[in-house]
C-alpha cells in the first residue's frame, strides 16, 4: 500500500469539549485506501516546540467525498495547536501508515475504546458491520466528558459505557463491566485501544477467557515510516516497529504482556 503526503484542507473543526475535538479534512487529490487501525503523521506548523510530526488514528473516512476525520484529545503543545485550526487551514499528513486490525474468525466482536482510544474503533465497527459480523462497543473514560460521540456506534451494534466516577454508564473500569460477568463470553475477538494499563487489563481478561485480542499501541514515534526504529515493541519474534509492523498487535505476540 503506497503511502503518500498531502496537504489536507480543514473544512470543519468540531470542539466537542475543552479537551476533545474532531478535525474534518478534505483531500485535494484522490486518497489511497485506508484500513481500520491505520494512522497519519500530522505536521504541526507554527509551533516552536513541536518539531516532530504527531501520530493520530484515522477516525472516519469518506471515500466518495475524499474526506477524512481525526478525533484528537489535547495532550500537550502539539494537540493544543491543532485544536486552534479552523476551516480553510491546511494540515499536512503522511498516510496511510501502519498495519490494520485483522478481521475475526468468529462472528461476534467486542471493540473497547478508552478515552480517545475510541478513535480507531469507528472504522473498525463499520467494517465489521459491513462484513455481517455482530458488534458490541464498550467505551470507557474517567468521567462522562471522556465518552465521545457514543451514539455514532449504535448503527453498528450495542454500545456499553463505563466511567471511573459513574457519571455515565456503569461505574468502574472497562474490564469491570457487567458484559464480562458471565462464564462464557459470546465474543470471538476483542479489539482494544486506550491507555496502556487499560489495554493490559483487557488483554489479561481476554486471555483468561480464551478470546483472541488485538490492541492498538500508542508508542512514541519519530518518523512513522519504519526508518528510525524509535517506536519498537518487544515481541516474541524480537523488536518490531509499531509504526510499520503495528500499531495493531495481537496481545499473544507481545513479550512483556504475557
Amino acid at each position, binding site marked *: 500500500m503506497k503511502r503518500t503526503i498531502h496537504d489536507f484542507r480543514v473544512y470543519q473543526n468540531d470542539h466537542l469539549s475543552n479537551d476533545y475535538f474532531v478535525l474534518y479534512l478534505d483531500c485535494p487529490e484522490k486518497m489511497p485506501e485506508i484500513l481500520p487501525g491505520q494512522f497519519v503523521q500530522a505536521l504541526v506548523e507554527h509551533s516552536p516546540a513541536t*518539531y516532530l510530526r504527531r501520530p493520530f488514528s484515522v477516525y472516519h473516512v469518506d471515500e466518495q467525498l475524499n474526506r477524512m476525520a481525526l478525533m484528537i484529545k489535547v495532550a500537550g503543545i502539539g494537540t493544543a495547536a491543532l485544536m486552534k485550526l479552523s476551516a480553510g487551514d491546511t494540515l499536512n499528513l503522511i498516510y496511510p501508515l501502519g498495519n490494520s486490525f485483522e478481521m475475526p474468525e468468529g462472528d461476534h466482536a467486542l471493540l473497547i475504546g478508552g478515552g480517545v482510544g475510541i478513535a480507531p474503533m469507528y472504522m473498525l465497527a463499520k467494517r465489521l458491520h459491513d462484513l455481517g459480523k455482530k458488534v458490541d462497543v464498550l467505551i470507557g473514560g474517567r468521567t462522562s466528558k471522556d465518552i465521545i460521540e457514543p451514539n455514532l456506534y449504535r448503527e453498528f451494534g450495542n454500545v456499553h459505557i463505563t466511567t471511573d466516577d459513574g457519571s455515565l454508564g456503569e461505574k468502574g473500569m472497562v474490564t469491570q463491566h457487567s458484559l464480562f460477568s458471565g462464564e462464557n463470553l459470546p465474543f470471538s475477538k476483542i479489539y482494544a485501544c486506550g491507555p496502556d494499563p487499560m489495554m493490559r487489563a483487557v488483554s489479561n481478561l481476554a486471555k483468561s477467557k480464551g478470546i483472541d485480542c488485538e490492541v492498538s499501541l500508542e508508542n512514541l514515534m*519519530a*518518523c512513522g515510516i519504519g526508518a528510525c526504529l524509535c517506536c519498537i515493541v518487544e515481541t516474541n519474534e524480537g523488536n518490531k516497529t509499531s509504526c510499520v509492523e503495528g500499531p495493531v498487535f495481537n496481545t499473544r505476540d507481545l513479550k512483556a504482556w504475557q
Partner: protein
Amino acid sequence: MSDSIIKPDLSVKVHNLNLKNPVMTASGTFGYGPEFEDFMDVNLLGGILTKACTSKNRDGNRYPRMAETPMGMLNSVGLQNKGVDYFIQNIYPKIKDYTTEVIVNVSDSTVEGYMEVAEKLLPLEKISGIELNISCPNVKEGGMAFGTSCPMAASVTKAVREVYSKTLIVKLSPNVTNIAEIARAVEDEGADSVSLINTLLGMAIDIEKRKPMLSTITGGLSGPAVKPVALRMVWPVANAVKIPVIGMGGISNASDAIEFLLAGATAIQVGTANFIDPAVCVKIIDGIEDYLIRHKFSSVNDIIGKLNIQ
C-alpha cells in the same frame, strides 16, 4: 544570457565515489532506502548511508528510545540491526540495483567486530564504500569511545584500512574537545574521507515522573538545534585535513546544506529532517541547483569551501 539556462553541474567526488550531487541521507534516518521509495525516487540522491551494520544481530536499547527537544530530538536506538550476514542475504538484494551510491554504516564494540563487518562487505559490488561509525553515543561499550580519543580512533581506522580497500569514510563524534585532531589522526591512518557530526550527547527528564525520558538516561541529539555546532566543527576539520569532508547535523533545507558546502564540506548528509518531510532530500537537491543558477555558478564545486572570511 544563454548560460543561465544551462543546468549547473551538481556532481562531486568523495575519494573514489562519484556522487550525482552532494546530498546523501544520514545513517539511521533512512533505513536502507526502500522505506522512502513511496515518497521519492531514491536514485535521485547523491547517496544513501544505511542504518548501522554490526557483526552480530543487536536488539538495541529498550523503549523509550526517543524524546523531542526544542527543534531537535534525542534518540537511543543503539544500533538495532540484524547483523552483517543478514544484511548481505536479505537487504543487499533489494538495493543492489540502485543507481545511487549505497554506503554501509559500520559499527561494533570491538576492533575485530569492525574488521569482520568490513571484510564481509568488501566483495559486494554495489557497495563502493563504508562509513565507520566510531561515534555512536548509544552503546555501552565501544561506539563513541573509539571516537573520543586520537589513539583509539587511529587504531580502529588502521585495522579496518588493512582489510578494506574501497572508500573508507570515518564518522566523527562531536563530543570531544578537539575534533580536528581526531580527523587528522584518522586521515593519517588512511581514511579516505571523514563525515561529521554524529549526534551530540543529550538528556531530557520527565518532571512529572521524575524519570529520564530515555531508557538509557542519555542519548544522541540531532535536528536543527545542533546545526550551529555541526557547522563550527565541519569548518575547522575541512581546514585541518586534505581528504574530503562530509558534513551533517540539522540540515533541513537547501540553505542549510549550502552553509555546510561553503564551510568546506564536499558532500552533506540529511538525517532527522527525513522524518519531518520524507521527500526533503529532493527539495534540497533542487534548492542547491536554484542557488547555483541564481548566483551564476556552473558547478557546485565552485562553492565548496568558498566561505569568505576576509
